[in-house]
């Protein structure tokens, strides 16, 4: 038995062989490398913001009279806002909020959407499938932003509510994706083989279908973190999400909007932060999709 165990450890490398190939493809794509670096930078900032930000207490919203609307300078890299707070610190602290919001929204949507989708797809054609999909269709028929606005307006302002609203408008996409995956996987011979062995339907769904269906979801959900950040920022921008004095990027863009002519820095830097972060996620997602395509992997320019 020892031989079996030691072989398992050393052969475990094979499990990650595919991941290593993907990694080596990504390594060579400058866009992917760049965007990954950027995302890691944002994450780093998010984690260490309290240590980096020069004026981290500013998030508490204590006004600093006399420092209002100062243009960017060495002591205030991004200038100051209407309360006199350092915009640079606010943006750094805001990274935490946006990243967490994006991550939570995606995770929540996955937790709700995936099992529903897999069950619907596996039991395709039955009442279960119809029921789940009709509910999903209703959600999908409404434009995500409008839906989120409606829910957020109903729940009331606040960041948590904005995240819930976004998640609610998000999960149907995963359900639909998973359902398509599960429906096609259901026809595959290895599922039939499992049935032939006597495996119960539920065991088949969670042991065979779910792990195999997750592959495209990984790419999709990576890109979605960016879009989730965008959506929650949008809600905050509209006044439905984070409320002052929270240093949320979207909120800051909104607050700075009216001052854009005279004190351009207040809206611009948070806006740039949103842009850069979301873009990085999208580019990385693109790169991941290309790297995971087995056919593209075979080509190699000499």
């Amino acid at each position: 038995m020892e031989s079996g165990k030691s072989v398992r450890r050393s052969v475990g490398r094979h499990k990650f062989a595919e991941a290593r190939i993907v990694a080596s493809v990504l390594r060579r794509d400058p866009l992917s490398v760049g965007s990954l670096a950027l995302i890691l930078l944002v994450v780093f900032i998010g984690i260490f913001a309290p240590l980096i930000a020069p004026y981290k207490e500013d998030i508490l919203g204590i006004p600093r009279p006399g420092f209002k609307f100062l243009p960017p300078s060495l002591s205030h890299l991004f200038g100051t806002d209407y309360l006199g707070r350092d915009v640079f610190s606010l943006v750094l602290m805001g990274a935490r909020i946006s990243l967490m919001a994006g991550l939570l929204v995606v995770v929540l949507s996955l937790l709700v959407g995936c099992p529903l989708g897999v069950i619907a797809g596996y039991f395709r054609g039955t009442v279960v499938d119809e029921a789940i999909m009709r509910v999903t269709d209703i959600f999908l028929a409404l434009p995500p932003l409008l839906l989120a606005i409606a829910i957020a307006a109903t729940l009331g302002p606040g960041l948590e509510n904005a995240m819930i609203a976004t998640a609610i408008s998000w999960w149907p996409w995963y359900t639909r994706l998973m359902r398509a995956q599960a429906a096609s996987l259901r026809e595959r011979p290895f599922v039939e083989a499992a049935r032939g062995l006597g495996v119960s339907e539920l065991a088949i769904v969670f042991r065979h279908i779910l792990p195999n269906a997750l592959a495209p979801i990984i790419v999709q959900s990576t890109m979605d973190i960016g879009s989730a950040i965008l959506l929650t920022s949008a809600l905050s921008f509209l006044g439905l999400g984070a409320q002052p004095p929270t240093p949320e990027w979207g909120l800051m863009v909104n607050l700075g909007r009216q001052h854009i002519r005279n004190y351009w820095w207040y809206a611009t830097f948070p806006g740039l932060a949103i842009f850069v972060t979301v873009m990085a996620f999208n580019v990385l997602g693109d790169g991941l999709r290309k790297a995971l395509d087995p056919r593209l992997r075979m080509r190699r320019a000499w």
Partner: protein
Amino acid sequence: MGKVLVEVRNLKKYFPVRKWLFRVVGYVKAVDGVDLDVRVKSTHGLIGESGCGKTTLGRTIVRLMEPTDGKVFFDGVEITTLDKKELRELRKNMRIVFQDPFSSLDPRMCVRDQIAEGIRTHIHASGEEIDEEVIRLLNLVGLKEEHMWRYPHELSGGQNQRVAVARAITLNPKFVVLDEPTSALDVSVQAQILELLKDLQDKFNLSYLFISHDLSVVGHISDDISVMYVGNIVEVIDAERIWEGALHPYTRCLLSAVPIAELDVKKEKKMELKGEVPSPVNPPPGCRFHPRCPYVIDVCKTRKPELVEVEHKHFVACHKAV
């Protein structure tokens, strides 16, 4: 002549053709009244071209598809009416091996887990007991302990098919349906798998239903052969006698068309088979083969011929041959 293990009587499997999601406008009569016997420790070959229904028949016999009509008896017990629990028990004794080794294994499960599934579904065993059993089975099919932790994409087609066979013989089944098990493999690998199947049959008294379109392979490994055409069995004959003694015109056309890797094989003059295979939704009336049959007579167009025993253990469904 061994005892009959699996008896198939008048088995039918129809697939409804639906228009507008609910209205049924016709049926694909994939299997349309089939009788078949598989004896203990023997291989019954099922041969036919694409669309004849042989794959559907194989799956319906093991109840991976529910029969529309007819009965299947396994060791004397009628299995077509078993409930879910009893069916699960049955699955220990009736297994199936599929054509494409790569897609019949879960790409995300290692070999050990795939084989273990065959065991764990039915009995409780500790991790070590399962490991031991998996190693034993791997050795039986010609693989090594180190293959336990590999994934399907790391193994060749032949190795994967061995894993599929190992999975099929967990818990010592009596009957295995082999659905084109070597069609996706190279010739030299095919030889390995065929010899493996024969060895396992000897060791464990297995009965096989060997489904294939390849007459050379079926002729080599089977004891008896049923020839299938558009949902019906048209001839049942000993494998030894098929090359010289086949009577049904379709069988003889097949025999004359099969390319043989031997020189100077006494083959029938090439029988021209005109036309296309008819659709199983609207098969021709009378004998289904009559539009293409070089020996057609009037009665063939109106009356469907029955399978009749023309000599010992040789059945033919043909008006002319009887």
